[in-house]
């Protein structure tokens, strides 16, 4: 499963999300090619928004 797949499943559509896999930043253009394995530490940090 890729980062992009996870984002689709989780319905993460916000434009400013910081993605880290095992503490390594993943750039947006690499979401589709970055494979996530079982046990990987995946963080998808949505930056503050609103008003």
């Amino acid at each position, binding site marked *: 499963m890729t980062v992009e797949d996870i984002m689709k499943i989780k*319905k993460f*559509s*916000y*434009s*400013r999300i*910081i993605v880290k896999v095992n503490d390594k*930043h993943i750039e947006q253009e690499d979401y589709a090619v970055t494979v996530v394995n079982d046990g990987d530490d995946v*963080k*998808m*940090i*949505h*930056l*503050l*928004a*609103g*008003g």
Partner: protein
Amino acid sequence: MDIITLKNNHKLLKEYKYELGKIDKGYANRTLYVNVSDNNIMEKPVTQMMKDKFVGGKGFGLWYLWNAVTSETKWNDPENEIVIAGGPVCGITQYAGTGKSLVCSLSPLTDIPIDSNVGGFFGPLLKFSGFDALEIQGKAEKDVIVYIDGNTGVVTIEEAPLEAVDGHVLGEQLTEMYADNEADKRNVAVVTAGTGAEHSRFGLLNFTFYDPRRKVTRLKQAGRGGIGTVFRDKKIKALIVKFSNVKGDLNNPFDQAIINKTGIKYHKEIHDLDSKQNNMRKIGTANIIEVMDAYDLLPVMNYQYGMHPDTQNIKSTVFIEKYITQGVQDGCWYGCSMACAKAADNFELKTGPYKGQKVTVDGPEYENAAGLGSNCAIFDPEGILELNFYCDTYAIDTISFGTATAFAMECYERGIINKEITGGMELNFGNFEAAAELLHQMSRGEGFGVTVGQGINRMKKLFAEKYGADPDFLFDIGMEQKGLEYSEYGSKESLAQQGGYGLTNKGPQHDEAWLIFMDMVNNQIPTFEDKAEALHYFPMFRTWFGLYGLCKLPWNDIVPADNKYTSEPAKVPEHVQNYLDVVYGVTGKKLSVSDMIKESERVYNFQKIFCIRMGKGLRANDRTPYRSMGPVTKEEYESRQERYDSQLKEKVVYDPEGKSTEEKIAVLRKYRENQYELLMDAVYKRRGWNSNAVPKLEHLKYLDMELPELIEVIKDLQ
């Protein structure tokens, strides 16, 4: 009626001449006091104590208001004031978002101080005319205007009987009246209310700026808390300031070069990144309509739900493609490259007294689209624009109107009120005509519109006492706290945001803290201590904008490309440093982040004690309606049954199997209400307050705020 006739009918009540001054490092060092009861006008010096403890803007506003009123003063007593103040940074033109004013008054909705942050040119031009703040007190006998001529040093109070009251007409009339020619219109700024402010408690103030490309007077709103209602109760029709020759260095800053450097860096960021991030320059804050829907946070049908299939009809791209004029520099003060003050031009109105006219609608901002749209189930972009226009010109707060109308609609659908009570109106969700008619009734001062205009707090009492409604149920679904209507985000799934709304000074407005993503989506603040830290830092940090005359949006509605590599991306550290650099550039004050937080804390705790002095501000006042915390009704629970059932299993350790929805609602409620109590304890502790939400004396000492008048209010509550 032509402008000359309008002007010829003015009757001069008072003329006051003053020496033009020079601003020194962001301060004019004096303020202007105007009393419309006895027409007294005077200047007051800004003291070092005021600068040290209150900084400017909201700090000055609250300090003057405190001195003007007693614990007995009501919003409609002549003693109540409206104070408008920029702040030391207000008026610079090199950084984005530097033209804001803060307006303070005792609120007709909450009976405690309210503060509202607003753009437009009035604040900066007031300062360039020689004043860090304008204090208005008293009540006039007949409609008056107050005119400040910052070019010649003259202030007048004049009766103005013939001008319109509605904001979009009055703004145009007075801009034309006081400008020498078309080019001069940019030098005139007007503050108005509107007819709706005369008959509701949530009247707002419109602050103008002239838009030379569109050739219209644009309106920005000091929306929250009913300050427009106070304005019309004082029989003030408008405030006008005129100042020509705006230049970038009028604040006589300490170090212009550092301001320029910081500004250039920021503008480049906007230029390079806005289209990849929030698209503020195309659509403004409305960019998040569909985002909130996708995360189940958009208020739908009085906050019952968080998303709706019809949101696609009002998503931001619909407004961008069909209504909002693109390619125009929409900054509400010079130099704002974020330029989010969007507008729909040539919009033809379908209802009301201006039906058939083509107008410029300022907006829609996110709050308008959500409050007037999804929360009332009006998924119609033209309906939203029309309601937005009439709210502005009638001077009705879109947020309070949207939330109060959504409440009335739910009461109607549940049979709590009926057609007899609404005067024949079918107040179902989605009924645009009914919502528009409520607004027109507020403007005319008649019908059920006047009832809705009293706000949810008073509607709840009326529906219970007069129509036999269950007060507990109304408390659960009436989205107000301290008398103020909630702004437009669903907070059920974020405990931190329940606190972000509930643990505020003025009432549930998100300008103190918006923590939903940090809490609910990212799980970055899992413990009570983490949440309390966020509910300390962000409200204090965001209070600071209002002390200096700054707009919050340029802080985090765009972030530097490398922000993600910083240790605390949510705080946008580079932008925080920009602000410290800009403040140093203007005032010469070298602040650290902790100094910044301390400056805010002084004013925040002052406002807190002000609320206590006025009879609120304690733990009991932080209680929130259950709909802000969880599902009130069967339909709400069942619409997200999987989510709630699994929470019962995992968090409450309760097996939902075989239980009725009512039983499950009750167990979940007990759990969530208890969580909120624990949150209150943690937040109060972090803020230096006792368990009754009262600042501790030692905390005042730490803040260097041991003013005798503050100690007097809280000493017996320790």
